[in-house]
């Protein structure tokens, strides 16, 4: 499993590991939406472009996940997968494959309401990358 779910008293989050930053950010997006729903049940309805920027890698990760979560919280679309097209340490551009939420077909396991900065981290570890993010649920 490339990511694990963090379980604190009042919080839920993810710890993600990957070989490259590109994969780390892709995995983090997958982990967040797998916490929300069964992404295997999603089809691709609407493809959209997502942009994010940040002061550093951790800030960029939080802002990236914020942009994706907004698709859910604002428009009630669920993200099936993402394709990061371009990225640097402070900016990224991606495509997100999304489908409109259907309460009869899509279970909601955890309704994530916000991506927090609390303990947010992106660090090099054992030749690869590791990230930690806590969600407000």
């Amino acid at each position, binding site marked *: 499993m490339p990511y694990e779910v963090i379980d604190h008293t009042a*919080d839920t989050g993810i710890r993600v590991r990957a070989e490259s930053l590109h994969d780390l950010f892709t995995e983090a997006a997958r982990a967040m939406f797998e916490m929300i729903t069964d992404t295997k049940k999603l089809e691709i309805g609407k493809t959209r472009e997502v942009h994010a920027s940040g002061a550093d890698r951790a800030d960029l990760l939080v802002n990236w996940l914020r942009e994706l979560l907004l698709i859910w919280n604002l428009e009630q679309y669920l993200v099936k997968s993402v394709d990061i097209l371009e990225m640097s340490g402070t900016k990224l551009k991606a495509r997100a494959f999304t489908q409109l939420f259907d309460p009869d077909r899509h279970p909601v396991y955890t*309704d994530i*309401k916000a991506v*927090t*900065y609390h303990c*947010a981290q992106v660090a090099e570890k054992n030749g690869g990358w590791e990230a930690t993010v806590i969600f407000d649920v």
Partner: protein
Amino acid sequence: MELERLDDYRWEIKKTGAMKVPARIYSSNALIEAVKKEETFKQLVNVAQLPGIVGRAMAMPDIHWGYGFPIGGVAAFDIDNGVISPGGVGYDINCGVRLAVTGLEESEIRPRLERLATFMQHHIPSGVGSTGPLKLSEAGLKKVLKQGSPWAIAQGYGEARDAERTEDGGCMPDADPAAVSSRALERGRGQLGTLGSGNHFIEIGVVDEIYNPGAADAFGLRAGQVTLLIHTGSRGLGHQICDDFLAAMTKKAGQTGIKLPDRQLACMPVNSAQGRAYYRAMACAANFAWANRQILMHIAADAFMAALDISPRDLAMRLVYDVCHNIAKIETHTIEGQKQKVCVHRKGATRAFAPGHPALCELYRQVGQPILIPGDMGTASYVLVGTREAMEETFGSTCHGAGRVLSRKAAKKAARGRLLNRELEEKGIIVKASGKSTMAEEMPEAYKDVTEVVEVVHGCGISKKVAKLRPVAVIKG
């Protein structure tokens, strides 16, 4: 970091290192051990380091680990030299509680309790993606943000007297919708009059015990009476406002020279342009939350009347009070004998103003502010009253509830193989939850003992017990 015990209910962390003030913890032998295991004290010490903090960084007995600031925390900042922090208020701005009493007795609802709970669940929009009874234009929503619960009352959701029985009259006058992003407006638009999910609930209860007959009489509480408790907040609107300002303040953090041990503590001087903009936007979310609880009370009254086939006169519902649990307020307090304007952050804490305070409506000015402390769904909720000790020690603040002790996953594990619904039914409590996991995550053992929490604030005098409410039916979002 050394924890020094001062008396039965008070602990202190002396000012050391970068701390600008000491930290104070209100707790008990039973409660403090669980808190010691978490990083909560470290979080309190972080708050004590923020610019312009006045007096002490304080933790109420229901304290637990939060994002940046601990939940159950109180901190006041000088308005000229201090800061305001979205993380010190929390995501769910003006998450709060409203208590109403009815003219009904427990014996009148017992035989039809299942029907009442079912009607309540069907009437109250709750759960993921639910929308409220109002179709608001953006201009309409902005009116709600500006006017708060008086707007809802003017639309027919309640009575004129309800506003004065709400903290701040249900409206923070500094609200300015121009400070709210279009994303936040969009998230809030369909959600007015909805309960939400997670720990939000509607509880039908009974006044079980009266501790202070004088205050109970002033609040209109009598033993055996059926009550309604509503716990919800500003929904997606408040979350988005918090998120927007955290991001914006983090971006500017480098320019202020404020050292942040954690980005979630992002803050700005109270008097800076961004600090003032946050206060005005936060006030909008607070007003939205008050309007939300006002509308939900009206819908709940409809559910009572439909389920029991009774008239408004039979129901005789009357609002007791409505309080915030997550808020920052500019207030005047006496500090070392001097009156000072401060920005009081209460994150998972309740205002507890003493008798005679000018902010209280005439009805309660003699006796003090009603304080509403919801417990978990299987135990009890409490009504307390504000005191002079709270004004002197805690900037007129007290606890807000039970506080979690089990993580959501741990609660689910503890619930495995158990029929929680039946366990609660055996205690005389019907629970309607939209999801099975909500039921497990919110089980009584997941929370601290609310009675123990209340004993601490009563024992140390920062509020006094008035009455205990026993739940009979709970609707979870």
